[in-house]
């Protein structure tokens, strides 16, 4: 079966976030960018399905600026067979991303589509669910285990307080959570080979999707700074402060 895996270019998770002085956005100039960590887990899962012989082809897709090609090449180096770049320099909100991906799903007809549960920039946690709704496919969100069984997909989901397992009728949409797998690193020979793998570019116009959104960002501010407190010298002093000063014991 064919597996489609969506990836997003985001700020590297080790980079300290700085808000622009005019409070219009986060400053992304000259900042290290990388594949969203949850998308790395998605790529890893797709590649493992191929290694197990369950998946016959892995197609990576991204929606984003020209530079996002870098993340597609990473996905190819990790084991994807080919890539699709829906290229736009405009900011793309979750709904538009889901509509664009729905078009790609319509063209490619994958049995399984895997996405990260959320991107670490906008922290929306929406696209996979929206894609499932738009394509009429069932969803297995926050997956910690995925098992293909004939035309059924068994997905174990990380829910508040524990785990839930559901059966989905394929074709289906899955979003990844942390415990699904531990992504590998790309090896140098694979990075070289990835440069020759096919990468197809499309635009939102070609797909007939407008990236306009009903949601406008009015301001972006740094969070309120928390003031550091005092160091205490002993456990006794700590207990005393908590009892008599903070009054939380």
């Amino acid at each position: 079966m064919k597996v489609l895996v969506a990836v997003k270019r985001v700020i590297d998770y080790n980079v300290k976030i700085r808000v622009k002085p005019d409070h219009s956005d986060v400053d992304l100039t000259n900042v290290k960018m990388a594949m969203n960590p949850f998308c790395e887990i998605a790529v890893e899962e797709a590649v493992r399905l191929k290694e197990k012989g369950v998946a016959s082809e892995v197609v990576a897709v991204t929606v984003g600026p020209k530079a996002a090609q870098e993340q597609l090449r990473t996905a190819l180096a990790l084991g994807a067979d080919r890539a699709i770049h829906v290229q736009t320099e405009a900011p793309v909100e979750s709904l538009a991303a889901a509509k664009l991906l729905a078009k790609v799903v319509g063209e490619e007809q994958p049995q399984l589509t895997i996405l990260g549960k959320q991107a670490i920039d906008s922290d929306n946690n929406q696209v996979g669910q929206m894609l499932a709704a738009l394509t009429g496919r069932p969803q297995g969100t926050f997956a910690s285990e995925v098992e293909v069984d004939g035309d059924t997909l068994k997905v174990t989901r990380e829910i508040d307080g524990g785990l839930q397992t559901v059966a989905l009728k394929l074709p289906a949409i899955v979003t990844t959570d942390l415990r699904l797998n531990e992504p590998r690193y790309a090896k140098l020979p694979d990075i070289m080979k990835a440069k020759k793998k096919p990468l197809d570019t499309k635009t939102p116009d070609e797909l007939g999707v407008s990236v306009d959104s009903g949601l406008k960002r009015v301001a972006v501010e740094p969070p309120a700074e928390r003031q550091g407190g005092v160091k205490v010298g002993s456990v006794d002093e700590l207990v005393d402060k908590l009892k008599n000063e903070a009054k939380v014991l």
Partner: protein
Amino acid sequence: MSILVLAEHHDGQLAEATAHVVAAAQQIARDGGGDIDVLVAGEGVSAIAEAAARLDGVSRVRVADDAVYAHQLAEPLGDLLVALSGDYGHVLATASTTGKNVLPRLAALSDVSQISEIIAVESADTFKRPIYAGNAIATVHSEDALKVITVRPTAFDAVGETGGGAIEAIDNGVDNALSSFIDERLEQSDRPELGAAKVVVSGGRGMGSGENFQLLDGIADKLGAAIGASRAAVDAGFVANDMQVGQTGKIVAPELYVAVGISGAIQHLAGMKDSKVIVAINKDEEAPIFQVADYGLVADLFEALPELESKL
């Protein structure tokens, strides 16, 4: 236009988070007007509906009692919300794994954006929400006719339980041929739920092993605390991911947060920095956690924890 709040419930009980979401709905109603309805969807949920009707500010509880909603599967619950949403200008849910699972379906099927995990209501159409793991706060304005919103419960104080809303059954069973429930394995614990606990004691990579997390048990017992962990401790395999406090785990804001052997990575701070009082115990005096801690103790946790337990 009225406001619909999707009730969160577990094991036949209304989750406390719902009272926090109703508080957010009240703030929206203060600016934009409209009644607040609560939707209780599930199987055998009459007690939950009665609890929801007692929440202050709730005019009406709409009850969809049907086996198809028993496990809160996203596909039927999404369809139910779509069927009801025509009556509303706002639909709100907790930013729980249930709310996050279902609400984007309503938004997509209604062709509107979703506003995730709001922490403040500026007006009926403008909200604040954290982005970049809480390292920036975005103010967003929605021009959509239907506002689909998940709410971070800890950012709103719960409403009281002195109300008397009406309870109405809705006859709206939907079909679900796409997904089915197999099983659920919930952690059995006598401790309070991490997201709702008044006191949280968390361990980090400094704990050294999963066994050493037992050092936190006695303290948690004495404080009536939930036990959490940093992502580093989860990634190291010490404890299960559902104990994770942080941007990629649970967001908590207890009265007292005790961070033990946690360095204070950005992503962890995003999950606990709104706690009222923060205590950090770490042997590295340069650890960033001390920059947010009200009380810092530079000490070897293997000595400090038994002493702390004995003195509480």
